[in-house]
């Protein structure tokens, strides 16, 4: 999966921490939310495996922008948040 800049995406509404010990670089506040790909930052060993010294496959890392109004009920139109997210947390929306 290669996500081009401008692609609308939705972050998985997944909560691995409810299933057991884990290390996740996807903040709570973007899970299940819609954003837009800004750029591909590169590819890095998956930190979710690296943190437990398991073999870690390389995963694409994207810069994804979210409107404040998508995240907060009193968000300000025009303001937004830019978050680094791994490809396996994203689906085209």
């Amino acid at each position, binding site marked *: 999966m290669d996500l081009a800049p401008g692609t609308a995406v939705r972050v998985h509404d997944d909560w691995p921490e409810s299933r057991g010990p884990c290390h996740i*670089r*996807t*903040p709570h*506040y973007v899970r299940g939310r819609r954003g837009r790909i800004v750029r591909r*930052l*590169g590819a*890095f060993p998956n*930190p979710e495996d690296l943190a437990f010294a398991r073999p870690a496959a390389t995963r694409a*890392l994207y810069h994804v*922008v979210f409107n404040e109004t998508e*995240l*907060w009920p009193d968000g*300000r139109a*025009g*303001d*937004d*948040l*830019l*978050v*680094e*997210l*791994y490809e396996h947390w994203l689906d085209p929306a």
Partner: protein
Amino acid sequence: MSTLLETDGEALLAALRGLLAAKGLATPAEVAERIAITERATPAQGARIVAKAWTDPGFRARLLADGTATVEGLGIPLRGAPPLGVLENTPELHHLVVCTLCSCYPRAVLGYPPFWYKSAGYRARAVRDPRGLIAEWGTVLPETTRIRVVDSTADYRWMVLPLRPAGTDGWTEEQLAALVREGDMVGVTVPATG
């Protein structure tokens, strides 16, 4: 109160260094080099980068396109450090950097993060109410300036290239660098003259 392990820190450090050398993991010279690099990394390095970007358009373009390689070209070593991204503030867009998950910070160019950067309060409020948060530093953005909060969640480190203040035409790089504070390169403040 005695559940903490009591050790002689100097002896522990000597033993660790001895083991690193004995096992061929890091020579004493490599350890000394790394300590020297860490001690040179202060906000003054970041300020030097900002001042050069303000005075050299070619450098600025290269810095924004590839922060890691461009900073290394100034003799600031990033070997072993995460890639560096530089975010340019404009009259229309202001960046504010936070790490909500821990304390990711561009240490190679700014040194150790300030105490507040790692606080739960800063981390929570930067994403939830960035304008209210930076107002407590006295930073009030024009209504027409959008704010973009950059949550440093993974493998990059981010530094802000602030706007050059008005009234600094003809200033030297050294004069300009003296204006730039660490908060300006995180986005909680903006550089100003006087």
